[in-house]
Structure formats: C-alpha cells, structure tokens
C-alpha cells in the first residue's frame, strides 16, 4: 500500500462519518481535528471502521498516531503490510 492509497482509505472513512465536510483540500501534515469538524466520537468511528472494513485494530494508546493523514499512513501501512496488502 502506498502513502497516497492509505490517505485515500482514511479519507473514504472520514467521508462516511463526516458527510458534511469538504475533503478536497485536506492537508496531510495538519491535524485532522484542526481542519475538519471531528470530535472524539468521530475518531472512535475511524477506529471502528478500520476494524470493520480492514480488520485493523488500533489500541487506545495508539490513537494519537491517527492525528493527521501522514501519521495515519506511517502507522497503518505496516499493519496492512502485515496482512499482505
């Protein structure tokens, strides 16, 4: 999985949980919460959707690693790689 593919995967999830948001110009190195209307329940949704759609578990201690798109990619790409993706 490439970094761009991982960004898209996360943005696809966000488009479902925050359907009113414009995701066309999300900056990958800026905290998602600083550029989108996302609260703590929404982050739990991201975690839930990673679990449901991709079988990826994100323990609570790692939630901070989902802060922005780049950190998501850095954290998730090895997990997908471990799944052979």
């Amino acid at each position, binding site marked *: 999985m490439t970094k761009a593919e991982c960004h898209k995967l996360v943005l696809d999830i966000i488009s479902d949980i925050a359907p*009113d948001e414009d995701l066309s110009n999300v900056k990958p190195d800026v905290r998602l919460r600083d550029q989108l209307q996302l609260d703590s329940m929404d982050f739990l949704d991201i975690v839930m959707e990673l679990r449901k759609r991709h079988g990826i578990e994100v323990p609570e201690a790692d939630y901070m690693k989902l802060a922005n798109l780049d950190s998501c990619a850095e954290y998730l790409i090895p997990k997908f790689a471990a799944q052979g993706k």
Partner: protein
Amino acid sequence: MRAPLPRIVITGLGLTAPNGKSLAEFRANLLAGVARISEIDVRYMGRYPAGVCSFDPLRYQKKKDVRVGTRAGSIGVYCAREALADSGIAVDALVKDRTGVFIGITEHGNVETENEIFNISKYNYDTKFWTHYHNPRTVANNPAGEVSLHLGSTGPAYTLGAACAAGNVGLIHATQMLRLGEVDLAICGGVSESIQTFGIFAGFKSQNALGSHPTDINRSSRPFDKSRNGIVISEGGCLYTLERLDDALARGAKIYAEISGYCINSDATDYVLPNPVRQAECVRKAIAHAGLAPSDIHLVNTHATATPMGDIQECESIRAVFGADCPNTYINNTKGYIGHCMGAAGALELAGNLPSFTDLTVHPTINVTELDPQCDLPGLVINQPKKIERLDTILNNSFGMLGINSTLIVKRFVA
C-alpha cells in the same frame, strides 16, 4: 383563596404524518378522505402495512447529525423547527434557558438496539463491533435531547414515557411546567420511530392485533368498521409551542387554541386490555377540570386503534360520559388515514382537528364500510366531513398499555 392558574395557549405547531408534513397538507387530506399507508419490509418478518413519513430530515439537520442521531430525534428536530417557524419565534431569539422540550414517547431504543444486534450478527456477535453511539441513541431522553442540542436550548428537555397516551401527556406536562413558571416557552407533543423496530410488529402480531386489508392497503386501518382487524403501526411526530397567554399576547402571537382541561389516570387492571370505567373516569375528570359539562364538548377525537375489542371498549366509555344528552357533540377518529402513530398519535390527532375552530368542519372517520353496531355512537362522523354550526371545544383521547389514559381538552381562544 388560590390565585387563578395562568392561561396556556397553543401558538405554533409542526408535524409530520404519513399523509402530510405540514398542518395544511394534513388537514386537506383529512377533509378529502386521503389515507396514506405503505408496505414496508420488517426485519425477519416480511412486508407489512405501515405509516411512513416523507419529510426531509436535511431541511434542518446536517447529514452527520442524521447519521449519528435517531429517527425519533430527526422527527423531533423537524417538528420543533416547524413549530417555531409557525409560532414566529426565531431560533436565534429563543431565551435558551427558559425554553423547555417535553416530548411524549411510546418507547425509545428498540430500533437502535435491534439494529446493533443485527450489525454484530455479521461479526459472529463479537461486541467489539457494537457502536459507541448506542448509549446516546438509546437513552430514554434521546428525542428531546436531540432537539435541545439542535436548538441550543438549555432549559429542561426530556421525554415522557406514556405508551400511546404520550402525545397528550407531552402537552399536559408542558402546561403544568408553564403554570409552575419553570419555563416560558414549551416545545411539546410526541414523536414515534416505531416502524423501524420489528419487535413492535412481532409483538402486535403475536397478539393478533396487526391490521391488514385483502385488497386496499389504505383500508388496513379501519376503526369502528365491522371488519377491522387491528393496528397499523406508523411513525410520525407533532410538536407544539405552548406559552402563557400574557406572554403570547405581549408578542402578538397567533393563537390556535387555549388549553382548557386535562386528566391522566391509570386503569390498574391489566397489562394490555383497556378498562372503559377508568377511561370514562379520565374523560369526566378532564371535563370537570375544564369547568365544563359533557354537553359543552363539541368534538371528541377517539383513540380507537381498530382492534376488535379496544374500539368497543372506548365506545362504551364515551357512551357512559356523553350518553344521548349531548346533541351538539360530534365524534371522529384519525387512525384510518395514518394508522397508529404511537407516541405521536395524540398530538397529531389534536392537530388534525384544530382547524375545525376556523372552518367549523369535523373531519370524518374513514374506511367505515359497515359500521360495527357496538361502535355506533351518537354524533359519530363517518366517511364524509360534517359542517356544524358551533365548535368551541375539542376533547382528545389517547390511551396506552399498562392502563394509562389521557384526555386533553382545548377550547376556542377568546380574549
């Protein structure tokens, strides 16, 4: 000597019913005899008649709020916003901490719980897939809480669980809170999302109490008809703005009607079966509370849900109160058009009759092909609207399981 209680008036209303998402549309369909019952897929059960509303939740809510919240919450928000608009009160002008939200519900949480169990069934019932929104969606105050969140109102906001008497109970409780001075504006009534829970359908089916018709789905709900065979479950909502008369006059509000009297009592006899003696007692007490006599009531809206026994028992209670000495009392029923909107029923059915103060017309009880002789009440208006000379009072009955009865009387506003 006790000071007279403040007079309480209805200054706005918003509604969504299966056959109308505004009072004008709803009333036009009630006068034209237009029922609107759909056939829906009920999980695990198949296709059944139900009343489905067509309002657009996105008229007032964001997509995210619709996704995170509940159908009852969306119905509540729609009705609250419509009621405020109708009353001429801008959301921005609300005195937030003096606004109360009091919403009657038959039940809440069945839909969301069933959905989650269905969801985790796809994951071998592993509860780590259970949504973190389950608790805010299923707490009993959810529909009122969603209205409060949407409006930013910070006064009391909660639901009143009163089975199918709930719509009236919402209005009655609001009246009491206004008279106590706890709030200055009450947004009140009832909502229901019950068509989305298979449990309600399955429960009524196990009671042999689900209504149907062999050829015409719009005749599935037919109170007082000899061939009636049960309830059509519907969703819907109706919320009112209630204010103390002085406040309403001070801001030049339009006034639909004045709260005249009410009663809530309990059968204390059975989980399901109504008790006509206690129902009659409830109606009598409401009339006495209004300082009226039975012959002063010009229109009675019955609760009758089209179950074979329940309709007869309500007719028994109405006969006991009104007898043959009330020649100016007319009787109707709304469920033939929209089915049983559960927690919203009482509030919606009152709304459908409020325009009678203006047009002096009683909307008919429809779908009566052969009137059950045991439901042949004097003054019952069936199949065609009836013009009458005088209509100053409406008595609205709503009854529910575990023997809760509610009667609300409103009267023409006279300064």
